[in-house]
C-alpha cells in the first residue's frame, strides 16, 4: 500500500463521519429507519477502513503529512503511527458496537434525530484527535469533540443532566484553554508543534514546566485525573447508556493519548526523568487510583459507581505513563484497550438493565441475573475482568503494569495495584452476587420485587456479548492482537522509532 | 516703550479677567447670569486674540463662540429652568 493511499484512507476516516452528519440530519426528517441504518453503516465503514491501515502499520511505517499552514509553522497535518492506529482502531470498533446497541436503545428514547448525527460527528472528531499530526490539529479536534459531546451528555435534558453538562462544559473550556497555553509555550520554545520532529523541548526550564503543567491540566481533565475528575462522575451517568459507554470507554482515552504525545513528542523521557516530572504524574496517578476506587464503593447508583470506577482505572494508565519503561508502557497501552472493552461492556449492560427495569439503585437489583441472564452474564465477565481475575484481559494489563513497576523498583506501585484490585472486588462483587443469588421475593424494605422483564434485545445483546468475548479472548489467549499492538507501541516509543 | 508696557499690563488684566470670569461661571447659580458672564468671557477672549494678532480667530470667536453659543444657551435655558 502506498503512502498516498494511506493518506486518502486517513482523510476518509476522519471526514467521512463528519460529512455524513448533515446527511443523517436530513435523513432523519424522512425516515427513522433509514437514518439508523445510515448511522450504523457509517460507523461500520469507518471501522473497516481503519482496519485496512493495519498492514501499513505492521510494516512499521509512519505517515506524517501536512495539508496547509494556518500560520507559519502551525499547520493542519495528519500522522499515522502504531500509537495512533491502536487508538483509532479501538475507538472505531467501540463506536461500531455502540451504534448497534443504540438501534434498539434509542428507539424508545426521544431526540434520536439529534443523537445520531452527534454520535457520528463525535466519531469523526475523535478519530481526528488520534490521527492528528501536530498538537494544534490535535487541539482543534479535541475541542471539537469535547464541545460536541456536550450534546450527548445533556441528551436527557433533565435538570440534573443540564447541571452536569454545565460543569462538563466549564471544565472542558478550562482544559481547552490550559491546552492552548501549553501549545503556545511549546511553540514559543520549540518553534513548532509538529509531532513529526521528535523532541520539541529538550530541557526542563521553568517555562517548560509551565507547559507541562498546562498539558497535564488539559489532557488530565479529559482523562479524569485526580483534582480535575469532578465533572466525570456527574457527566457520565446522566448521558444515554451507549453515550456513557463511549464517554468512559473511548473519550477518556483521548486524554491519555494526549499525555502520551506530550511525554514522548513534546518532551522526552530524559526530560521527564531529569526534571522529576514523572513523580508528579506518579503521585497524581496513585491518588486517582485510590480515590476513584474508594469513592466508587460508596455509590449506590450503578452508573455512578461505574463512572467512579473509570476514574480509578484511568489512574492505571497515568501510573504506567509515570513509570516509563517498556513493560509499563505496554501495560498502559494494553490497559487502554482492555478498559475500553470492559467499561463499555459494563455501561452497555447497566444501560440495558436500566432500560428494562427503570431501576438504577444497586440495592434494588437483587435477582436481576435470573431475569436477564445474558446481560448480567456479560456484566459479570466484564466486572471480573475489572477485578483482574486471571484468564481475562484485566489481569494481563495489571500484570504487565506490575512487571513494569517492579522493573523500575517501585514496589509501592505494585502495592497500590493490589489494593485497588481489592477495592474493585469490593464494589463489583456486591452487584454480581446478589444479582444471581439473592432470592427474588422482597427487598430489604419488604416490598415485593417483580422484575417481570425479558432479557435485552438481540442487537443490544450482540454488542455486549462481543465485548465480553473480547475481554476473554484478549486475555491470555495466544492470539492477542491488542497486546501485540501494545508491545509494538512501547517498542516504537522507547526505541526511538519516532521519526 | 511706554505703550509696550501699557499693552503688557492690559494683556495681563485681560487674562486676569478671563480667569475671574471662568471661576465666576462655575460659582454663579443663576444660569442666565452664568451665560452672560460666559458671553463676556468670550468677548474678552476675542480681544485677547486680537492682541495676539489673530484677527480672524477673534472675529469667529466673537460671532460664533460668543454670539451663537450665547443665543443657543439662552434658548436652551428658556426651554428648561433658570436656576442651577
Amino acid at each position, binding site marked *: 500500500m502506498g503512502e498516498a493511499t494511506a493518506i486518502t484512507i486517513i482523510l476518509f476516516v476522519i471526514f467521512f463521519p463528519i460529512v455524513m452528519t448533515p446527511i443523517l440530519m436530513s435523513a432523519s426528517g424522512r425516515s427513522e429507519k433509514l437514518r439508523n441504518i445510515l448511522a450504523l453503516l457509517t460507523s461500520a465503514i469507518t471501522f473497516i477502513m481503519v482496519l485496512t491501515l493495519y498492514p501499513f502499520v505492521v510494516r512499521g511505517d509512519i505517515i506524517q503529512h501536512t495539508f496547509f499552514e494556518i500560520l507559519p509553522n502551525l499547520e493542519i497535518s495528519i500522522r499515522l503511527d502504531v500509537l495512533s492506529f491502536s487508538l483509532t482502531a479501538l475507538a472505531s470498533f467501540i463506536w461500531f458496537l455502540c451504534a448497534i446497541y443504540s438501534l434498539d436503545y434509542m428507539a424508545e428514547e426521544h431526540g434520536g434525530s439529534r443523537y445520531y448525527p452527534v454520535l457520528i460527528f463525535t466519531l469523526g472528531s475523535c478519530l481526528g484527535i488520534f490521527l492528528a499530526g501536530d498538537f494544534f490539529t490535535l487541539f482543534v479536534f479535541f475541542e471539537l469533540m469535547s464541545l460536541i459531546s456536550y450534546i450527548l451528555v445533556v441528551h436527557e435534558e433533565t435538570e440534573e443532566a443540564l447541571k452536569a453538562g454545565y460543569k462538563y462544559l466549564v471544565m472542558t473550556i478550562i482544559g481547552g484553554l490550559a491546552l492552548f497555553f501549553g501549545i503556545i509555550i511549546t511553540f514559543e520554545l520549540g518553534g513548532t508543534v509538529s509531532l513529526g520532529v521528535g523532541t520539541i523541548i529538550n530541557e526542563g526550564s521553568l517555562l517548560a514546566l509551565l507547559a507541562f503543567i498546562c498539558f497535564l491540566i488539559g489532557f488530565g481533565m479529559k482523562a479524569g485525573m485526580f483534582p480535575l475528575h469532578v465533572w466525570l462522575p456527574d457527566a457520565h451517568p446522566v448521558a444515554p447508556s451507549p453515550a456513557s459507554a463511549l464517554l468512559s470507554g473511548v473519550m477518556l482515552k483521548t486524554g491519555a493519548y494526549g499525555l502520551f504525545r506530550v511525554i514522548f513528542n513534546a518532551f522526552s523521557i530524559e526530560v521527564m526523568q531529569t526534571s522529576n516530572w514523572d513523580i508528579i504524574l506518579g503521585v497524581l496517578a496513585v491518588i486517582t487510583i485510590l480515590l476513584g476506587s474508594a469513592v466508587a464503593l460508596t455509590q449506590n447508583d450503578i452508573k455512578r459507581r461505574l463512572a467512579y470506577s473509570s476514574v480509578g482505572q484511568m489512574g492505571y494508565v497515568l501510573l504506567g505513563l509515570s513509570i516509563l519503561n517498556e513493560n509499563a508502557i505496554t501495560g498502559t497501552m494494553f490497559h487502554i484497550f482492555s478498559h475500553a472493552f470492559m467499561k463499555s461492556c459494563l455501561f452497555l449492560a447497566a444501560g440495558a438493565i436500566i432500560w428494562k427495569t427503570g431501576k438504577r439503585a444497586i440495592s434494588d437489583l437483587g435477582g436481576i441475573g435470573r431475569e436477564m441472564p445474558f446481560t448480567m452474564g456479560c456484566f459479570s465477565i466484564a466486572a471480573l475482568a475489572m477485578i483482574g481475575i486471571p484468564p481475562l484481559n484485566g489481569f494481563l494489563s495489571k500484570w504487565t503494569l506490575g512487571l513494569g513497576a517492579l522493573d523500575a523498583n517501585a514496589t509501592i506501585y505494585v502495592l497500590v495495584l493490589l489494593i485497588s484490585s481489592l477495592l474493585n472486588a469490593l464494589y463489583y462483587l456486591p452487584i454480581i452476587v446478589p444479582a444471581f443469588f439473592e432470592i427474588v421475593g422482597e427487598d430489604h424494605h419488604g416490598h415485593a420485587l417483580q422484575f417481570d422483564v425479558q432479557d435485552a434485545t438481540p442487537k443490544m445483546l450482540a454488542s455486549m456479548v462481543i465485548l465480553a468475548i473480547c475481554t476473554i479472548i484478549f486475555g491470555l489467549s495466544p492470539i492477542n492482537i491488542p497486546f501485540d499492538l501494545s508491545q509494538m507501541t512501547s517498542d516504537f516509543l522507547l526505541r526511538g522509532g519516532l521519526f | 516703550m511706554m505703550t509696550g508696557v501699557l499693552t503688557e499690563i492690559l494683556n*495681563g488684566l485681560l*487674562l486676569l479677567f*478671563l*480667569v475671574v470670569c*471662568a*471661576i465666576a*461661571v*462655575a460659582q454663579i447659580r443663576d*444660569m442666565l447670569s*452664568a*451665560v452672560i458672564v*460666559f458671553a463676556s*468671557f*468670550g468677548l474678552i*477672549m476675542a480681544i*485677547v*486674540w486680537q492682541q*495676539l*494678532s*489673530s*484677527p*480672524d*480667530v477673534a472675529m*469667529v*470667536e466673537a460671532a*460664533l*463662540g460668543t454670539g*451663537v*453659543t450665547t443665543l*443657543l*444657551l439662552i*434658548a*436652551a*435655558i428658556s*426651554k*428648561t*429652568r433658570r436656576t*442651577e
Partner: protein
Amino acid sequence: MLIKIAHNYYYMVAILLFIIGMHTMLTHSNLIKKVIAMNIMDTAVFLLFVAVGYTYGGAAPIVTAPANEVLYVNPLPGSLMLTGIVVAVSITAYALSLIVKIYRFYGTVDYDEICLIRSQE
C-alpha cells in the same frame, strides 16, 4: 522659576483655564453648566494654540501688497482654531438640544436629580 512663569503667562493662563473648565465640567451636576464649562475648556486650548503661534511684534497675517518684508504672526494655529471653534459650537449646540430633550423626559437638568428619579423607578 517665577521669571519663567512670567515669561509664559499666556500658557499658564491657558492651562489654568483648562483646569478650571475641566473641574467645573466634572464636578457640577447641572448639565447646562457642564456645557458652558466644556466651552471654557475648549477656549483655553485655543488660547494656548494661538499663543504658540504668536510672535512678539508680529503683524496680523494679512497680505495687502505683494512681497513686502514684514514679520508676520504664524497664521496656521489661528486658522486651525477657526475650525476648532466651529467644532466646539456644534458640540455645544448638539449637547443643548440633548439637554432640552432630557428636560422633557425628566423635568430637570440636574444629573443628580435624574439619577434619583431613575433609581426610584
